[in-house]
């Protein structure tokens, strides 16, 4: 019942915050977000699961309730956690709480609605990671879009309407595509499944129970469904060339929204990749592993090159996310413990590190009212804490050992290099060159903005960060160092869940 409690607490918090007057809302929202945060850590402490949720593993906090009967298919309320979803759940609660803190400074209009939507968003995200029945899963998947659309569209920058509509339409169309793909599979499976239970569907597909549909052979259906699902999730990840909504959304979104967007929302895409494309349709994924790896490498290198060309700090971080998500895909398609496990670990790590960098950029923006690299220099003297956090976060992002980014990337590289599915290590070696480009653009940005003589074209008073601005930076830093120095804190449970997926792949 803890998962229901978790989601319920978020919704309840959202309701309470919606009704409160603006004055009390920041504190109230923070308090409200602490309940799910604590609950998620209680769940983490008591976490006891083995195996993969989609492959018949033992789940933690599982609930199955018969819900709706529809055209011969049962729809259940089925939730449960395995080692892949548990850390993502914790990531969500942690980042939401910190995002709420970072909102204290910049958000001063319609506060109760803002914080309420953030908590509502949290509920949707938690649902995506915890729900195991397709119907409810899709509901949560779509439910995330609405608060995100509003958060960008109302509290965003000058071009917020454009960015919000682009985000909404693009991801909504993607949902349509993946929906069609998934239902092709459901109809193809016919009588061999009796519900929309995703683990059951996954196992039926893996047992080759897919029949032909309207004269189309099962193999073709599988391939078509794979492509549809892949395209649908690729928008969310985002993967090149479906990525152009992301920089626009990030640039217009206020800092706290960027943190959740980069930190958690993108992981919906990679999480769905893992569960659908790489678990349910693993044979197709393995067959086209080299093509998929090629897409991953393109995302890594192309995304990094784009980041190199940017002058807006937020755009730099936004494009770097595309690059980092490429590593996730590379790890997933490797089908090794380190590959898939590293990809999952990278989801967590990137959530923390991109959150940290966005938070730093946010603090700088709140103070200087600009994000352009050329508009400022020498901030280090006046913003020592922010500078320290920025430097640490940037090096973490570059893969500094004893921070989470290094562990994640090393796992992915190690898993992909000798991967039986990708075959040649050349693609991995090319992808690894991303570690040089990332150092290039982050060091360049830091040199220009933080160091040198102090100069600020926007003429605002620059002072030290306030406590509620500094806390999220330090907390995120602590988390990245903790799981970077002792990766087993997260990787232990991830490995449990990944094991069955990669077993016997050669």
């Amino acid at each position: 019942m803890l998962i229901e409690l978790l989601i319920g607490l978020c919704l309840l918090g959202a309701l309470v915050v919606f009704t409160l007057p603006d004055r009390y809302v920041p504190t109230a929202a923070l308090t409200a977000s602490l309940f799910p945060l604590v609950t998620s850590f209680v769940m983490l402490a008591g976490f006891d699961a083995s195996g993969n949720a989609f492959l018949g593993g033992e789940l933690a906090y599982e609930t199955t309730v018969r819900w709706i009967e529809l055209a011969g298919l049962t729809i259940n309320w089925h939730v449960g956690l395995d080692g892949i979803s548990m850390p993502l759940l914790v990531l969500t609660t942690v980042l939401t709480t910190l995002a709420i803190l970072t909102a204290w400074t910049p958000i001063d209009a319609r506060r109760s609605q803002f914080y309420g939507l953030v908590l509502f968003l949290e509920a949707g995200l938690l649902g995506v990671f915890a729900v195991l029945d397709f119907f409810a899963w899709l509901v949560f998947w779509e439910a995330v879009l609405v608060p995100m659309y509003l958060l960008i569209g109302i509290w965003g920058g000058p071009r917020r309407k454009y960015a919000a509509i682009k985000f909404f339409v693009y991801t909504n169309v993607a949902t349509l595509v993946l929906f069609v793909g998934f239902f092709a599979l459901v109809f193809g499976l016919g009588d061999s499944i009796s519900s929309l239970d995703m683990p059951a569907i996954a196992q039926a597909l893996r047992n080759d129970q897919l029949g032909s549909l309207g004269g189309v052979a099962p193999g073709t259906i599988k391939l078509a469904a794979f492509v549809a699902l892949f395209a649908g999730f690729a928008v969310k990840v985002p993967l090149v060339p479906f990525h152009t909504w992301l920089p626009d959304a990030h640039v217009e979104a206020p800092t706290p929204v960027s943190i959740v967007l980069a930190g958690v929302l993108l992981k919906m895409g990679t999480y769905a990749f893992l569960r659908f494309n790489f678990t349910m349709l693993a044979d197709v994924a393995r067959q086209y592993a080299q093509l998929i790896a090629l897409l991953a490498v393109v995302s890594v290198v192309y995304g990094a090159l784009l980041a190199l060309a940017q002058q807006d700090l937020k755009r730099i971080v936004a494009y770097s996310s595309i690059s980092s998500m490429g590593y996730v895909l590379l790890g997933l398609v490797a089908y090794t413990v380190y590959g898939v496990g590293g990809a999952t670990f990278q989801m967590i790590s990137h959530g923390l590190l991109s959150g940290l960098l966005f938070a730093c950029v946010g603090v700088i923006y709140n103070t200087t009212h600009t994000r352009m690299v050329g508009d400022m220099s020498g901030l280090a003297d006046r913003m020592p804490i922010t500078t320290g956090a920025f430097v640490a976060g940037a090096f973490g992002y570059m893969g500094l050992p004893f921070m989470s980014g290094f562990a994640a990337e090393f796992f992915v590289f190690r898993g992909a290099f000798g991967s039986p599915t990708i075959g040649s290590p050349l693609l991995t070696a090319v992808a690894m060159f991303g570690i040089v480009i990332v150092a290039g653009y982050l060091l360049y940005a830091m040199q220009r903005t933080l160091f040198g003589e102090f100069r600020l074209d926007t003429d605002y008073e620059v002072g030290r960060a306030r406590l509620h601005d500094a806390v999220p930076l330090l907390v995120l830093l602590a988390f990245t160092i903790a799981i970077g120095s002792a990766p087993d804190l997260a990787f232990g449970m991830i490995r449990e869940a990944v094991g069955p997926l990669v077993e016997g792949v050669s």
Partner: protein
Amino acid sequence: MAAFDYAPAIAVLPLASFVIALVAGRYMPKGGAFAGILATGGSLVLSAWMAFAVAGGDTYNESLYTFVDAGEELSLHLGVLIDPLSAMMLVIVSLVAFLVHVFSLGYMNDEGETGLPRYYAGLGLFSASMLGFVLADNLFMAFMFFEMVGLCSWLLIGFWFRDAAPPSAAKKAFLVTRFGDYFFLVGVVAVFATFGTAAFAGAESFPTIAEEALAGGSEGAGGAAVTTFFGLDPGAWFAVIALLILGGVIGKSAQFPLHTWLPDAMEGPTPVSALIHAATMVAAGVYLVARIYGFYALLPTVLAVVAFVGGFTALFAATMALVKNEIKQVLAYSTISQYGYMMLALGAGGYVAATFHLMTHAFFKALLFLGAGAVIIAMHHGEDMWEMGGLRKKMPVTYWTFLAGSLALAGIFPFAGFWSKDEVLYEALVHGLNDPLLLGAYAMGLAAVFVTGFYTFRMVVLTFHGKPRSDVARDPHGVGWNVKFPLVVLGALAVVAGFLNMAPVAELTGLHVDYLHQWFVGPLEATSLETYEGLIEERAGYEAAELSPLLPAAVSLALALAGAGLAVVLYRGAEPTEHTDRLGSAKRVLASNYYQDEYQVWLAEGLTARVARAADTFDQGIIDGVVNGTGSVSLLSGSRVRRIQTGVVSNYAALLTLGLVALLVVLGVTGGWF
């Protein structure tokens, strides 16, 4: 053995001083300097204890911390390997780090400097990272600390961040070495994929498995289980791995063509330069090759590359030092050149020669940098040698110790550098007589001896002799005990360290005075000198020619004296003139560092940045243009027929469906991809 239980503390102590300086430095006197001095002093004592234990015949090779627990094959560990090599290096690193901390009391505090806690925190972390690197028992851990060293160099080179140049130099140092580290990282991953382990020593270590695989291969029987890639046979694939790892070495040890970061790194405080050049970052590369020498010794092609890169860099960098006007620049290029000698020795099969030179160089180069630091204090932070002159009488302690260091650098008998450089050249020669490539490397190394003698004494004479050429030089700033003490310690070492290993004397007289050779024999078989010598002969096929050490030593000494003598003759006198101007256009090439910076800057800014901008234009114009074009077309048509929402969606859907169809066609056509 109890001593080794304290081994991790060697790295943990400076780490603690990093944390203390960072958190509490601003409340402590001198910004937390004393925490650093105590910590590195403690590391020095512990390192000496380790060395004694090793001298007593003990070694230690244990995994201490499981980084990732993924079953037998896949787990990643951090551990400690203490054998003669690491014990020696621990002493060197902690000694130099300790002296640099002490020296910093005088160098940094005389300036009313802000940010001292950050400085001492950086020094602490730098020492900790390097000591962790030296202690590492596997390649994965070594890579981790290798990267930490890179971070620390960035922090300290860019210490004076308010000026424009230091942050830029720091960025360059990190980027250039990161470029090398990319190859190293691919190498680490390849080692795991090939051998399933990255341990340095023991039955389950990758050098041992590699040797077994090659032995099995040559006998036609199935060797140990290794996975090779690209269809290469084990020998060729191992060579690829060794070259990949060498990429990291070339970056950190500033070998051609990745040496360009090092002269720029002079923007950091001078004590930091001493630390970087003598004992930490730059030494890390060469140490790594020595650490896995059991792997390199199997691969003659790679050894030849190492030797040739080393010999070339030794000469190449030395020539650039000829025309520099700033004292630290001369020293910077001499560092590149001297590490070239170490690489030459390693490539030529001279394991002891290389590590010996690593040690003596650490002492005399730390000495020279700290001496230069004392001069720079005296000159009120002026570095131009043409502004100096006549400092000999004003600062005798600095002069005499600097002279000892210079004699060692030039390789003049009987100073430390003579013995080690001579052994490097001797090893290159005896193995080179049977191998023209090696002989070429030797020739370059030998030519560099003359150049080294010249630039070293050009520096000494211009700085200390003649008459003061500026007002500051007439009335230099005094230096305190904290500057003199490290100079005296290192000065003494620059004189006597060579006596640790008088190989030519041992060979000629039969006396056992080649103590370092004995030090490296045993006790851990996998890293024993005897094992390496066996591998060099059997696997790499190196043959040493019979040759008396006397003549080669005489030749190199004569060259060094000639170079030094020429410089003294040309530059002595009250008003020296710049004689290198006679080189004409050659001087312009040298002063421009052979235009190495230009092409690398072009690669980074001209090429990569241009490609990035082109990608950005493509992204905004084409990819996003298609997306937006579809969107606006549909919005427009939608508004006409009042179906805005569905209009957008249907057009997007149409676009995506088209894309999917295209993708499906591609998939169908290329069915069996690759």
